[in-house]
């Protein structure tokens, strides 16, 4: 596969505050890549650097092998769909989309043809004469995409483009964006803080936190084999328990030794153990590898989310069984339910549900919006 964009040892600080710290990354042609991370992780800055709106303090940006650090935005074969769309309010839908073509002095007939074609593609065929301020959020979104695509950029940068849409519309747009990406073959670089969105759309996900890359991989890799506690916690729900790797395929935690599928650790190396809530089986207390008391049950529709106190550590378990608060239950774990990670600076910061409440989580999410 051809590398279309390469970032080499990029660092950037604003007013002495480091935002990106030695980032190296390459993006393949025709790929749908997502930069995922909480607010302030540097993902938008990284995107703006590719677009040409920010300049790295250190490091190089390569486009098809050529250094483009000093190439201004209007000369880059890269277009952006901005967070709040940045549609020109003084121009109508047609003129917004035609904007890049008029800049390169494309003949009138061709502009008409191309604009109508692309408005058809984003299903806004009848909206050409409308004022952009009269459109709904979803429609504005489509205009922004059409405008960014019309000059056939090699790479399309999308800065949280779905953030302002409601849930239902967001799901539809996710599908549609993916479809557009596949049909045009343009490389998409997508920025989001929504892990579900990232998992469902991307070929590759880059997880960022505090200006550093935490992990790069396919959605399945990232979900199933997180590299550290931050990734495990940020992508989906995880119980993260202190453990000790006794030998290959054998790990001990919560006073019990489990079989697992991981190897390559030193004998008796302290590790972080990740268990996804949906991978835990509930059994009778005497049959369980571990046992504990249910402290909270929340009905979630598809399943119940329960919090179980096992030896002072609170686990989250998702189950379709019905259990009650104060019930004593046992749990059982298959070897492939257990994932072992090396200790990192994030160890011990995440993965314990003792202070858990849905409300708090939502508050944290809302605070995370950029």
């Amino acid at each position: 596969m051809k590398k279309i964009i390469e970032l080499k040892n990029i660092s950037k600080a604003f007013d002495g505050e480091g935002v990106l710290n030695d980032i190296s990354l390459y993006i393949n042609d025709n790929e749908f890549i997502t930069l995922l991370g909480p607010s302030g992780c540097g993902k938008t800055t990284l995107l703006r650097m590719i677009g040409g709106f920010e300049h790295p303090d250190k490091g190089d940006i390569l486009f098809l092998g050529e250094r483009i650090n000093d190439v201004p935005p209007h000369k880059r074969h890269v277009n952006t769909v901005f967070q709040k769309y940045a549609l020109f309010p003084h121009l109508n839908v047609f003129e917004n989309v035609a904007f890049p073509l008029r800049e390169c002095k494309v003949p009138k007939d061709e502009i008409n043809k191309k604009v109508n074609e692309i408005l058809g593609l984003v299903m806004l065929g009848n909206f050409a004469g409308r004022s952009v301020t009269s459109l709904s959020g979803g429609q504005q979104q489509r205009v922004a995409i059409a405008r960014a695509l019309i000059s056939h950029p090699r790479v399309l940068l999308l800065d949280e483009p779905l953030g302002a849409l409601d849930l239902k519309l967001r799901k539809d747009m996710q599908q549609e964006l993916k479809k557009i990406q596949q049909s045009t073959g343009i490389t998409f670089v997508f920025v989001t803080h929504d892990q579900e969105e990232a998992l469902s759309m991307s070929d590759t996900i880059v997880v960022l936190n505090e200006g550093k890359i935490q992990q790069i991989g396919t959605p399945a890799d990232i979900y199933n084999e997180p590299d550290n506690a931050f990734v495990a916690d940020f992508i989906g729900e995880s119980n993260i328990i202190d453990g000790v790797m006794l030998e290959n395929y054998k790990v001990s935690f919560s006073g019990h030794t489990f079989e697992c599928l991981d190897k390559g650790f030193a004998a008796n190396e302290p590790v972080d153990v990740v268990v996804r809530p949906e991978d835990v089986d509930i059994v009778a207390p005497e049959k369980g590898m571990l046992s504990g008391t249910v402290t909270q049950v929340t009905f979630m529709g598809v399943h119940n989310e329960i919090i179980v106190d096992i030896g002072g550590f609170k686990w989250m378990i998702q189950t379709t069984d019905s259990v009650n608060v104060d019930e004593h239950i046992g749990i059982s774990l298959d070897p492939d339910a257990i994932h072992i990670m090396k200790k990192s600076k994030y160890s011990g910061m995440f993965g314990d549900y003792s202070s858990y409440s849905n409300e708090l989580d939502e508050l944290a999410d809302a605070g995370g919006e950029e």
Partner: protein
Amino acid sequence: MNKHKKGGAFLPLAPYSLWSVLFIVVPLIFVAYYAFTDEAFRFTTENITRFFTATSNIQAEDGTMQEVRTYLVIFGRSLKLAVISTFICLLMGYPMAYIMARAKERTQKILVTLIMIPMWMNFLIRTYAWMTILQDTGIINNILGFFGIQPIHIIGTETAVIIGMVYDYFPYMILPIYSIMAKMDTKLLEAARDLGCNSFGVLRRVIFPLSLPGVISGITMVLIPSISTFYISQKLGNGKFFLIGDAIEGQYIANNLHFAAAIAFILMVILLVCMGVVKYFTSKTYGGE
């Protein structure tokens, strides 16, 4: 987070930078320069001293002649008339601004336009109109005479000058207060009522403190022009109440530029100090904004 790449400020800013230095900064330096030099541009403090020491004789009320410090008297009079006018403007303007801000949106627009109409007329004409109204044989006295009331003598009194000042600068008091009040969130007022304030309480404890920035800018917008005005006193005061502005103009006409500059300089310094004091107190009230 949104630290956009800025710059490219030099070229568009260059003409204005040059202009503001040449025609704003340099002229102010020139005021000081002229104030502290004599005809031959030699340094002197004589002009400044003259402002504080020059004397003249005026007739006191009991008919005896009195020697007074000319310019201090003029300045004191300017200050007195300006403060009285400003206070009357505030007293009359505050309720008006409040009524306007509470009116329907359409009414508000019409009222603002109506307030602005006299503002758009030249102040010379406005002042002149009052002169004809207040004359001894003017309309007021005609009307009074019609009802058989003794004519009153207003023109040439301090009252006439104050009426002129109030009339000329009244809109400058209303508009800033109104614009702050119109922006005030009505929910705040409802909240105050909800928490047990009566109408007067809402006014005193919520509306007035919130409208204070408007009041202050209204006061400065009326005080500064009325303290430095000329013409009004010449027309409505029959030239009997020389104000600081008239003094500057008089020296200008007499081609006494150095002394004119000295008076302007002193006026500027005093206003600067006043505004510094006002700013200090407002920043104290508003937590150092």
